């Protein structure tokens, strides 16, 4: 966990007071909606179909049990008893009242949570690997650098009015769990040939209306140069990024139009002017940040304790363990993913009661720490393997132990037309139907790893472009239709999926997905060839034929 200092606490509290005054002036009519809109957006407040939506940041996906309890409190006191975890390590409340928002923010501020820059044309919540600091083989904890960027970009005057929103993601592992290639700036911590630690910097990734995979602009930037280099990128974007057309305003369009070489040259010229400025990071700054992260006092524990050997006879426990328990860097410990994808449930939602219970379990079994992943699941990052059987029973009791992590029913979905004012079609009912179709655990296991992503409109909050199977809701003559893509992925081999054919109506989506999965099972070279690899090997044509032959 990261411990906020007095400066952080003052900043957050002052922001609450400022927003309280702004809301008061809005409700009295002193501020028009036109004047207020930007102010509310910079505090994570959108207007959705039924109410205001309040987006709260969970920087680099790390939460304390105290913070999760406070989110539960906000859900219960100010909303309708639940929250929705998003694909960018935020939580959203869908039914919040504007008049009560300052009180909700004040309650969150008491535990160091805020909603600053969770919307608007500024730098957004800095996201990272949800296993940061505990993943085996990690170069170092990327949250230290995430926190540096969080502090640097928060209320940065030069980057508060960018042409469009701007998103960072950081990973320090070979396997990318932070989707860095689909962010405006993606950072991969690695070692160069000399054994020095630094960042591969990618730029211009993004989804939405015009998807692009990020391109490497610089293979290696030393940590002490990170801020100056990042600022150079932002300056070039701020200067040349389009402000006349919202659909062409993201940095990905600028990088595409200029070309990565020309863009890199512009950045390099800017960087040379500021590289040795005050932005050069002194090692003591990083050490200070590092010292503010607390790490558990792990015990020396056996890898295979008796409790685990005994529980291995229970097939239900084993199914969950094999699916939801992952290796930890410390022997005797494990990372446990909590599925927020129950059969028939809305992906990513957690009730206040579940949040409270998870916070209690985190205190008991995970040193009081919880992680939020971009796949819309939670994780307990420090679980002793001897505690897995008893933890499993407790998680199962509160409905977050569905053994479907990374399987076909572990669906990423945006809120869609049930909540969102931008959506053209519903996402959640499609996801719910698919989880019912693939509810059988043995079948899901037979299928293996398969990511389905659903977005209710082209803005792609459900990251459909990078789903192994992507589903995009569109509107045709007032009816909901869905375009299907296959072959996308969001990891270190990120790719944008390929459209398989004409959009299909709402009622046929689940049938189409079943057809695609059946085609895969028939076409795969061997039982352990993953769906994504079969598509890569064969292309989309066999799947297209299967889906449209009878339609």
């Amino acid at each position, binding site marked *: 966990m990261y411990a906020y200092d007095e400066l952080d606490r003052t900043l957050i509290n002052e922001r609450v007071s400022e927003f309280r005054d702004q809301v008061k002036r809005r409700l009295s009519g002193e501020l028009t909606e036109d004047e207020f809109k930007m102010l509310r957006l910079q505090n994570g407040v959108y*207007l*959705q179909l039924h109410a205001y939506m309040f987006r709260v940041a969970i920087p680099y996906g790390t939460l304390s049990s105290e913070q999760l309890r406070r989110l539960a409190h906000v859900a219960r006191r100010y909303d309708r008893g639940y929250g929705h975890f998003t694909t960018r390590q935020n939580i959203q409340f869908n*039914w919040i*009242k*504007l008049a009560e928002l300052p009180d909700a923010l004040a309650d969150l501020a008491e535990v160091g949570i805020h909603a600053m820059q969770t919307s608007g044309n500024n730098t957004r919540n800095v996201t990272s690997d949800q296993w940061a600091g505990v993943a085996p083989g990690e170069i170092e904890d990327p949250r230290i650098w995430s926190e540096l960027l969080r502090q640097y970009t928060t209320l940065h005057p030069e980057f508060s009015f960018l042409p469009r929103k701007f998103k960072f993601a950081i990973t320090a592992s070979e396997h990318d769990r932070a989707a860095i290639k689909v962010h405006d700036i993606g950072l991969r911590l690695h070692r160069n040939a000399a054994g020095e630690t630094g960042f591969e910097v990618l730029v211009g990734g993004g989804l939405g209306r015009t998807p692009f995979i990020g391109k490497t602009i610089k293979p290696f930037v030393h940590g002490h140069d990170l801020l100056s280099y990042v600022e150079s990128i932002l300056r070039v974007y701020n200067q040349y990024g389009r402000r006349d057309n919202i659909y062409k305003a993201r940095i990905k369009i600028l990088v595409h139009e200029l070309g990565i070489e020309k863009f890199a040259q512009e950045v390099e010229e800017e960087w040379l002017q500021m590289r040795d400025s005050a932005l050069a990071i002194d090692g003591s700054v990083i050490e200070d940040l590092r010292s503010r992260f607390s790490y558990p006092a792990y015990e020396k524990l056996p890898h295979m304790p008796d409790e685990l050997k005994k529980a291995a006879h229970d097939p239900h426990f084993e199914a969950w363990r094999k699916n939801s328990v992952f290796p930890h860097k410390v022997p005797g410990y494990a990372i446990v993913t909590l599925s927020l994808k129950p059969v028939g449930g809305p992906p990513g939602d957690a009730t*206040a009661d579940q949040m409270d219970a998870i916070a209690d379990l985190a205190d008991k079994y995970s040193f009081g720490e919880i992680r939020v992943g971009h796949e819309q699941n939670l994780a307990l990052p420090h679980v002793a393997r001897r505690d897995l059987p008893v933890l499993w029973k407790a998680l199962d009791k509160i409905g977050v132990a569905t053994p479907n992590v990374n399987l076909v029913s572990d669906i990423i979905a945006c809120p869609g037309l049930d909540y969102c*004012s931008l959506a*053209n079609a519903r996402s959640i009912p499609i996801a*719910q139907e698919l989880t019912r179709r693939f509810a059988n655990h043995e079948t899901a296991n037979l299928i293996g790893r398969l990511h389905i992503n659903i977005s209710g409109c082209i803005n792609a909050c459900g990251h459909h472009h990078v789903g192994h199977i992507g589903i995009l809701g569109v509107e045709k003559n007032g009816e909901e239709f869905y375009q299907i893509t296959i072959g996308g992925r969001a990891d270190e081999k990120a790719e944008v999926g390929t459209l398989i054919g004409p959009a299909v109506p709402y009622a046929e989506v689940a049938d189409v997905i079943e057809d695609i999965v059946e085609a895969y099972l028939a076409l795969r070279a061997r039982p352990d060839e993953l769906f994504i690899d079969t598509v890569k090997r064969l292309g989309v044509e066999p799947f297209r034929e299967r889906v449209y032959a009878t339609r």
Partner: protein
Amino acid sequence: MTSPLEQKKIRITGPSMVTANRTWDGVVIYRTSKHGWSADLSDAAIVRTSDEARALLTESIADDVGAIGAYIAPVEIKEAGEIRPGNLREHIRSEGVTIDLPVPA
């Protein structure tokens, strides 16, 4: 279901109403013929020409304190005079989400 954000020109092809969200709490509201707002669709003022729609929208937008994001949306008028939402978006706004909420209301 064109997003209201993309609604540029005012041209209606059937019975329509003006809807918005109440400023202080975001609740869905409808402009009434008495120049006020109601959370009940059956109270909505119905317009049938583009000129009427423009006038109703202009009057609605003028209430910047009471309502946010006013726009024109289609309705269906049933035989008995019942007003029903004219598309799925408005159906969801009027009737609520089409799924069971994680915590029953």
